[in-house]
């Protein structure tokens, strides 16, 4: 199985995401933002970073990259798509996911080992976890506070589309402690913390993040 990892100018965690894909048991394929085809991948990850410097708004310029058109089409057809951090911001800018990520409530960049609970194990990226499982993975961003209107929030909550929630003190001011959400179909997931930085205890706080990358294999087998 092949998982594409997209590099925009300013993407930083692409090599980490590719390593996590490989550790999870799939083959990582590099996708360049100017690519016009997806090289036959079965799933795509939009990794973290500061694409285009995050100028204007985080993710606002990347969403117009040529590769995004193909990714949006494929995701609308059911292809698993995971946006991590800056990737989540891109997914919100493309409106594949609702809401927006705004400045952390403490107003500065925060890098910390964050406990989250997995609230939905039916998505393409979370089936390896158990409902309510608490895991610790790094959170690192300056604009990670998930915001949306009350109506959207009610829909997300009502439909069980909150994928992960922060446990304990709210690290960044996200509404309802939201750390990640999914679309109605469950193939697209946006996640603020970084599972690709938690695939072993040598370089990460835990190996808890690996579950996201093994889950997508199950999604393919189905």
């Amino acid at each position: 199985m092949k998982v594409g990892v997209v590099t925009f100018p300013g993407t930083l965690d692409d090599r980490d995401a590719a390593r996590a894909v490989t550790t999870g048991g799939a083959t990582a394929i590099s996708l360049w933002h100017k690519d016009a085809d997806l090289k036959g991948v079965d799933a795509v990850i939009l990794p973290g970073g500061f694409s285009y410097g995050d100028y204007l708004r985080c993710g606002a310029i990347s969403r117009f990259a040529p590769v995004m058109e193909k990714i949006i089409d494929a995701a609308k057809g059911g292809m698993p798509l995971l946006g991590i951090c800056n990737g989540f911001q891109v997914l919100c800018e493309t409106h594949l996911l609702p809401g927006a990520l705004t400045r952390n409530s403490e107003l500065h960049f925060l890098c910390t080992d964050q406990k989250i609970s997995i609230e939905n194990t039916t998505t393409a990226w979370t089936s390896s976890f158990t409902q309510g499982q608490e895991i610790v993975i790094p959170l690192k961003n300056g604009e990670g506070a998930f915001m949306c209107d009350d109506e959207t929030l009610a829909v997300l909550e009502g439909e069980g589309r909150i994928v992960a929630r922060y446990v304990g003190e709210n690290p960044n001011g996200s509404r309802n402690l939201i750390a990640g959400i999914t679309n109605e179909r469950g193939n697209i997931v946006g996640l603020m913390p970084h599972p690709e930085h938690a695939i072993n205890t040598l370089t990460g706080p835990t190996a808890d993040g690996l579950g996201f990358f093994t889950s997508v294999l199950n999604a393919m087998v189905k």
Partner: protein
Amino acid sequence: MAKIVVDVMLKPEILDPQGSAVSAALPRLGFTFAKSVRQGKRFEIEIEGEPTAAQLAEVEVAAEKLLANPVIETFVVRVEK
């Protein structure tokens, strides 16, 4: 009720990475009108009644001290009806 607006811009000689990024993105989307783009900040301050000269002077001081960084930024204070 009136509104005092403070527009803060990077000084012309200071590099504006954000403006440059937008300037580079526009032609990629087919918009060719821009010779250059600079990005700034806008503060809207609501006050009771019409602003007095003294209040405006105070806003100038506040802008110099807090809203703008005079080392790299300039600002303009104006009243919006």
